[in-house]
C-alpha cells in the first residue's frame, strides 16, 4: 500500500517548461498577415475602383451588414446564444439617432453616440430577462422583443412617424450623392474596424475564454467559478451597442426610416446567417458572410427586381453552404490547408509499445497491476 504520510512531491518526469507545441506551421502567420493586408487594401480601395455610385452604395450596405453581423457575433459567437431579434437594436439605434437629432437638435454624431448609450441601458433589463432562458427559448424571446418594438414604432405615430416613415436630417448636407456614399463607406469601414478590434481583444482575453466555455457547457463553466450570468449580460450589451452603432450610422446614411424595415425579422436573420456562413468562431467570419450574402442579395435584387426571388436564391445559397461547410467558410477553407499537416495521433501508446511493455512485465515477477511510472508518450 502506498504510504499516506509521504510528504514530498515525487515527480520524476522530464520537465516541460514552455508549452511549445508547434501546431501551426510557421508560414501560416505570414499567410494571415498577407491576407489581412490585401483584404484591408481591397476594402479601402473599393470606393475608388467602384464603377458607379450604385455599386458604391451596395458596398456601403455590405459594410453595414458586416458591422451588424460582427456585432451580433459578440453574443452569438462567444456565448452560443443565438438571437434572431438583434434587429431590435438596429432599429433602436437608427430611430434613437434620428429622434435625438430631430427632437433635441443634437449634432448628428453626438446623437449617434447617445443613442448607442441609451440602447446599452435598454439592453441591460432586456438581457437580464432574455438570458434567463437558454436554447430555443432564448431565440423565441429575442424574436418577441423585436416584434413588440415593431408594433410600438408603427403605432406610436406622433413620435416615430409610424408607417409613413421618418426622415433623418443629413449630417453633411452639402455633399453630392457619390461623395455622401464615399464618406459613409469609410465611416462604416472605421466602425467595422473598431468592432473587429474589440472582438479580437476579447477573443484572446480571459473574459473571452470564459465566454467560450459558456458556449460549450454553461453548467460546467459555472462549476469552475465563472460568473456566467454577468458575463453573458456583458456580451449581450456589447453586442447590442455595436448593432446600435450600425443602425445609427445607417439612419444617418440612408436618411429615411420605416419600422417595417428597421425592426424586421429578416435583418435579424441576415446577421445570424452571415455569421454562420463565414464561421462564428472566426474574427472575420461575419465579415466574409456579409460580403457573400450581401453581394448575393444585391445581385439577386438587381436580377429579379422587386420580387421575393432574392430570398429564395439566398436560401438556396445558405442551404448549400450549411450542407458542405457546416462550420462556415473560414473553418472549411482552413481545413483544406491543414488537413495533411502534423496532427499527432490520439493513441496514447502505439501497439508496438504496448507489446514491448507487456513483454517486459511478464518477464518480471511483480504483480501485473503496477505499470512503470512513466507518463504517456506518443512517438
Amino acid at each position, binding site marked *: *500500500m*502506498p504510504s*499516506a*504520510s*509521504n*510528504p514530498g*512531491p*515525487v*515527480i520524476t*518526469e*522530464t*520537465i*516541460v*517548461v*514552455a*508549452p511549445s*507545441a508547434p*501546431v501551426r506551421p510557421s508560414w501560416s502567420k505570414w499567410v494571415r498577415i498577407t491576407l489581412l493586408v490585401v483584404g484591408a487594401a481591397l476594402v479601402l480601395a473599393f470606393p475608388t475602383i467602384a464603377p458607379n455610385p450604385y455599386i458604391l452604395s451596395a458596398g456601403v450596405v455590405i459594410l453595414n451588414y458586416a458591422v451588424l453581423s460582427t456585432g451580433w457575433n459578440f453574443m452569438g459567437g462567444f456565448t452560443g446564444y443565438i438571437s434572431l431579434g438583434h434587429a431590435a437594436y438596429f432599429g433602436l439605434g437608427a430611430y434613437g439617432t434620428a429622434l435625438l437629432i430631430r427632437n433635441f437638435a443634437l449634432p448628428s454624431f453626438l446623437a449617434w453616440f447617445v443613442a448607442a448609450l441609451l440602447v446599452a441601458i435598454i439592453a441591460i433589463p432586456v438581457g437580464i430577462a432574455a438570458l434567463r432562458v437558454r436554447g430555443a427559448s432564448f431565440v423565441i424571446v429575442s424574436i418577441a422583443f423585436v416584434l413588440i418594438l415593431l408594433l410600438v414604432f408603427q403605432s406610436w405615430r406622433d413620435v416615430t412617424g409610424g408607417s409613413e416613415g421618418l426622415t433623418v436630417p443629413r449630417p453633411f448636407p452639402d455633399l453630392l450623392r457619390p461623395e455622401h456614399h464615399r464618406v459613409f463607406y469609410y465611416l462604416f469601414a472605421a466602425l467595422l474596424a473598431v468592432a473587429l478590434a474589440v472582438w479580437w481583444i476579447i477573443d484572446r482575453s*480571459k473574459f473571452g*475564454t*470564459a465566454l*467560450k*466555455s459558456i*458556449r*460549450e*457547457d454553461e453548467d*460546467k*463553466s*459555472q*462549476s*469552475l*467559478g*465563472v460568473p456566467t450570468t454577468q458575463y453573458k449580460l456583458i456580451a449581450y450589451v456589447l453586442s447590442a451597442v455595436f448593432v446600435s452603432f450600425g443602425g445609427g450610422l445607417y439612419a444617418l446614411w440612408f436618411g429615411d426610416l420605416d419600422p417595417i424595415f428597421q425592426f424586421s425579422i429578416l435583418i435579424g436573420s441576415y446577421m445570424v446567417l452571415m455569421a454562420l456562413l463565414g464561421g462564428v*468562431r472566426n474574427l472575420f467570419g461575419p465579415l466574409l458572410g456579409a460580403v457573400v450574402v450581401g453581394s448575393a442579395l444585391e445581385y439577386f435584387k438587381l436580377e429579379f427586381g422587386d420580387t421575393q426571388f432574392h430570398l429564395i436564391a439566398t436560401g438556396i445559397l445558405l442551404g448549400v453552404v450549411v450542407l458542405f461547410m457546416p462550420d462556415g467558410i473560414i473553418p472549411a477553407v482552413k481545413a483544406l490547408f491543414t488537413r495533411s499537416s502534423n*496532427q*499527432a495521433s*490520439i*493513441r*496514447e*501508446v502505439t501497439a508496438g509499445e*504496448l507489446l514491448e511493455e507487456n513483454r517486459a512485465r511478464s518477464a518480471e515477477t511483480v504483480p501485473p*497491476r503496477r*505499470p512503470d*511510472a512513466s*507518463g*504517456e*508518450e506518443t512517438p
Partner: protein
Amino acid sequence: MESESKNLLELHDIEAGYGRAALVLRGLSVVVPPSSVVCLVGPNGAGKSTVLKVASGMLVPRSGSIRIDGRDVTGDGPQRMLQNGLAHVLQGHSVFREMTVGENVMLGAFTVSDEKVVRERVEFVQNLFPIVGERWKQLAGLLSGGQQKQVEFARSLMVSPKVVLLDEPSMGLDPKTTAKVFEQVARMRDAGTAVLLVEQNARRALETADIGCVLDLGRVHISGPAAELLADPTLADLYLGGQPSSGTDASTRS
C-alpha cells in the same frame, strides 16, 4: 478518524437527498486525511456520487456538518467550496472539447487572480501531466479519453485544491488506460493533493487508495485501510466483483 483536527475534509453525520424524495445519505461520515486517497466503493444507488455533490456544494445536506481543515463550511455553494479548496472533477468526459488544452487548464484558474500563482500552477500541472504541456495548443476534444482525463485533473489542480473530488475517473476508459488514470491519481496524492474518489471499478481503485469506505444504503458500511478491505474475502465477494448488487437502491427502503 479519532483525532478530528488533522483531517483535511470531514463529512459528519450527513443526511442528504434530492427534492422531496427519500434520503440518499443517511448519517454518512467520511474523513479525508492529508496526502491520502480515500476511495468510496459500493453498489449503484449507495450514494457515492451524492457524497461528492455534498462535498462540492452542489447539494446542500439536510443535516450534518462539513469541515475543511477544521473550519465549518456547511451550506456553502459550489463557488465557495471551490474557494474553500475542494475541486470537483465530474463524471464522464468534462473537458471543453472545442477549446484548446491550454484554455481548458486556464479556465481551472479562473478564480485565481494572482498571475504569478497561475504561472506556477501551470508549470506544476505540466510537470505532473506532461501531455498537458505537449498538447497545450490542441483542441481538447481531439485527445483520447485518458488524455482528456489528465486535462481534467490538471484543470482541477489549478486552484491549488486541498482535496480533489473525483467522480468515476475510469468511466468509459479501457483497462489499460484505467490503470494509467489510477497511476495519475496516485501521483496527485504524492504531489501533495488529497483525493476523494468514487469508483465502480472498486478493486482497481482500492489498489491505489490508502483508505477505503464501503457505502451501502447511504452510510459507510465498513471503512479501513484499503489493503485490508481488499484482503477481506467477504467484502471482496459482496462488493468487489462478486455478485452484482441487487435491491440496494436507497430509495426503495424509505
